[in-house]
């Protein structure tokens, strides 16, 4: 593996640590009644969003999923506005009208989380098509789950990108469970990268918990997409460290798997890279402390934030 600077490795680790603790704080806020509705933690999958997004340019595009907090944060979302949205506040990315499953930042190329599994994929293909009509060399990454890889929207989107040779990277986050149904019960082909091969798309299967492996795979594909060689597909094997959502204890997750992935945790792997590169434990703690302070400030900002008034809301929906 190539040698990376401590700064680069720190930035990857920081993003993963931020996602992990964003979810942790979010769940606390949920339990305290500050957050309502659905909350799907990205726990255990942090390396995928982090590795892929860090391989892209700021003016590229992503589409996310219902489990989307990690993608938004890896894409550079502001913690204050993220928490504010989860709390339904006016300062949130969607002014509190979208919530967890609809966070997006169109001005920055984040085309949004999506409450409908698989539906972000054709949208990603459309962003790539539009850019290609305009003659821009943008790359689009579309995240989907193993569950989403069985739905027509994903498969149609994959075929369209292949037919039109568009610069799209399909990222299947194979966390091995579609809500509570294990992948073995969901499909006759559990090696999901083969979905891409079936459509003529160069596809690989990688360890989705190893942030450098994700980054290097994504970087090579992003560069090749920019040269017009896309699309590509990455199956990133990972594990959801929790139930489907905050109120699902995930009792169906087998003990052996939980234990294996507890050791094979993306943050542990990321920290190991940093230690190997020479970062001390104190420096790592400093880095973590800085993130925790930012999160604390953001939670405070969100809790104190204003909600959209009824008048503002009625004004906003005028003309519907």
């Amino acid at each position, binding site marked *: 593996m190539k040698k990376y600077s401590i700064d680069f490795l720190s930035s990857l680790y920081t993003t993963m640590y931020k996602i992990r603790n964003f979810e942790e704080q979010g769940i606390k806020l949920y339990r305290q009644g500050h957050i309502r509705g659905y909350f799907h933690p990205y726990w255990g999958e942090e390396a995928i969003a982090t590795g892929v997004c860090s391989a892209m340019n700021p003016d590229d*595009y992503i*589409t996310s999923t219902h489990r989307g907090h990690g993608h938004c944060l890896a894409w550079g979302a502001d913690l204050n506005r993220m928490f504010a949205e989860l709390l339904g506040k006016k300062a*949130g*990315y*969607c*002014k*509190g*009208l*979208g919530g967890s499953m*609809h966070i*997006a*930042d*169109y*001005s920055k190329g984040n*085309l*949004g989380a*999506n*409450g*409908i599994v698989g*539906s972000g*994929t*054709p*949208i*990603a*293909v*459309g*962003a*790539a*098509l*539009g*850019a*290609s*009509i*305009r003659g821009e060399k943008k790359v689009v990454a579309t995240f989907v789950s193993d569950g989403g890889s069985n739905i*027509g*929207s994903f498969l*149609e*989107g994959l*075929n*369209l990108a292949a*037919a*039109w040779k568009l610069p799209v990277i399909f990222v299947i986050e194979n966390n091995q469970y579609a809500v509570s149904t294990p992948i073995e019960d969901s499909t006759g082909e559990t090696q999901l990268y083969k979905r891409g091969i079936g459509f003529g798309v160069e596809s690989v299967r990688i360890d989705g918990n190893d942030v450098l492996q994700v980054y290097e795979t994504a970087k090579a594909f992003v560069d090749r997409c920019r040269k017009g060689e896309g699309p590509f597909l990455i199956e990133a094997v990972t594990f959801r460290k929790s139930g489907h959502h905050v109120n699902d204890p995930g009792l169906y997750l087998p003990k052996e798997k939980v234990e294996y992935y507890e050791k094979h945790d993306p943050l542990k792997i990321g920290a190991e890279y940093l230690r190997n590169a020479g970062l001390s434990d104190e420096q790592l703690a400093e880095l973590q402390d800085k993130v925790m302070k930012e999160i604390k400030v953001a939670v405070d900002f969100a809790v104190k934030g204003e909600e959209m008034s009824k008048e503002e809301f009625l004004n*906003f*929906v005028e*003309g*519907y």
Partner: protein
Amino acid sequence: MNESNTAVATREIMYREALNEALKEEMRRNPNVFVMGEGIAERGGSYKVTVDLLEEFGHKRVIDTPISENGFTGTGVGAALTGMRPVVEILFIDFSLLVLDQIINQAAKFKFMSGGTARVPMVLRTQGGVGNGLAAQHSQSLEMLFYHIPGLRVVMPSDAYDAKGLLKSAIRCDDPVIFLEHKLLYMNKTDVPEEEYTIPLGQAKVKKEGKDLTIIAWSGMVPKALEAAHILASQGIDAEVVDPRTLVPLDKETILNSVRKTEHVLIVQEAVRRGGVASDISSIIQEQAFDYLDAPVKILGGLNIPCPFNLNLEELIIPQVDDIVKAAKEVVYKG
């Protein structure tokens, strides 16, 4: 130019030619406008609406798609979200049922869910209606599905003039527009100005003035309503024909003004009678102009059954001119 202009140079062209002109003009006007659909490039579309576009605008902007409605409609949504103005063609409205997630859960919701930061300036063009023995899966009128969904505009032009002006406005609209054509109207001719014009979404048109009753009809029912009005006139009944042209936004004012004048209302709808747009328009009239009504609002709709293949039976399931004449007489107590 707007509709009030008189004495403009016109020529008679077909509905499909008017749509073709609208597409060409808007594609010339804005390089971000592009069209996609099944067999629309070389073939020019099943109803010839997109003929010659490929030659002028090339493959980048005139895109033949695989038979993958949900996928390519979603692709249109994604392109629209990122600054393009796609015109997506779905061959039959019946196939639009394959794309409802992208239209209803996605396109119609983005502006709202994002707190107003996202826009989806996309037009979904398709055609519906009974005609020519296409049977149960190619003959439906499904405007009610889209009418029901907040966040969508629904346009249903009944002649070439309206088709051109409304399609141009639909393409310029910053929100998703469902543009519903009718398979039996494509060859119909009307006078269309030489000069460029647009018709704002949300303006009904009185297609024939009258004082005895208001017949409200849209899309394929408008020519039939006009023919019925002609027959009624010969029998001493002066019917006014109002074409909403866009169902969302609905020009309630023009409808209500007509109702206040004539005090009698017949709504003619090709779609099945149950749960249709006509019922909603009727409820609006009864809520807002009840005191003006001299008779109950009558709705003449399609039968609540799928469309048969047999041509003689096909004719039975939707309102015909004679049915409209008969229903109009009932409304004015001359049946």
